[in-house]
């Protein structure tokens, strides 16, 4: 039933590393208001946060959509960045194309995508080099 779906939309600013994660903080707050369990909220928050960071450091920002149904939380992160040439490689722990300036900010350890997979029940990456990337993740409630 579409009426059972709660939706939140966010613009993720690609120019401002310091504001990255603001959407995830907001999602956390809203899910808490909806009475979702702390464990589910934490998994959603971490996956979304890593995805948001990726959009900022690799893709110049994008859009995040979070949908809450009675069964699951679904996150859709869409960007029009460079895309990912080899998804299997990108999914490997420790693989990163992030430069030293990003590492000095505490990210770029190549753990983001593996983390997102680890903390969610499903994750799907739709990407095309030169067009952009859309990551869809769900967490069962």
């Amino acid at each position, binding site marked *: 039933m579409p009426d059972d779906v709660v939706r939140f939309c966010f613009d993720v600013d690609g120019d401002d590393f310091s504001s990255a*994660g*603001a959407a995830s*903080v907001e999602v*956390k707050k809203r899910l808490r208001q909806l009475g979702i369990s702390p464990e589910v909220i934490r998994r959603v928050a971490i996956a979304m*946060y890593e995805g948001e960071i990726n959009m900022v450091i690799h893709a110049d920002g994008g859009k995040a959509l979070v949908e809450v149904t009675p069964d699951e939380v679904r996150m859709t992160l869409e960007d029009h960045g460079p895309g990912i040439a080899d998804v299997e490689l990108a999914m490997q722990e420790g693989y990163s194309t992030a430069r030293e300036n990003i590492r000095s900010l505490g*990210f770029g350890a*190549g753990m*983001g995508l593996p*983390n997102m997979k*680890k903390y969610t029940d499903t994750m799907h990456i739709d990407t095309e080099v030169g067009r952009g990337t859309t990551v869809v993740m769900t967490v069962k409630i």
Partner: protein
Amino acid sequence: MKIREISEKLCADIVCGEDQLDCEVFTACSSDMMSDVLAFVKDQAVLLTGLVNPQVIRTAEMMDMRCIVFVRKKVPTEEMKCLAEEAGIVLMKTQMRMFEACGILYEAGLKGHVEDGVCDA
């Protein structure tokens, strides 16, 4: 251990969250890589770090942490302080280096992980 005791043992200055110093914590972790904190940490309530940027606060918030200790004389910015206040996270800063600070807290009884059935409420 109370958060207050952490500040005493590390001779740390409280930056914000003074009203939460009586909160009990049992576990801690230390890292300058936020991705590692997000990957390997589970139920640790205290983060020790030498990294200073707003993502440190957001990372701790995502992990439901209660307290961040900045080592090596690092000073959190006003923006970070605001974020922490909003998230209800205690910030403190110490002159000590990471190894020293971790060692002191470990010796005082803070653990690296939660034992079965025990966790910080």
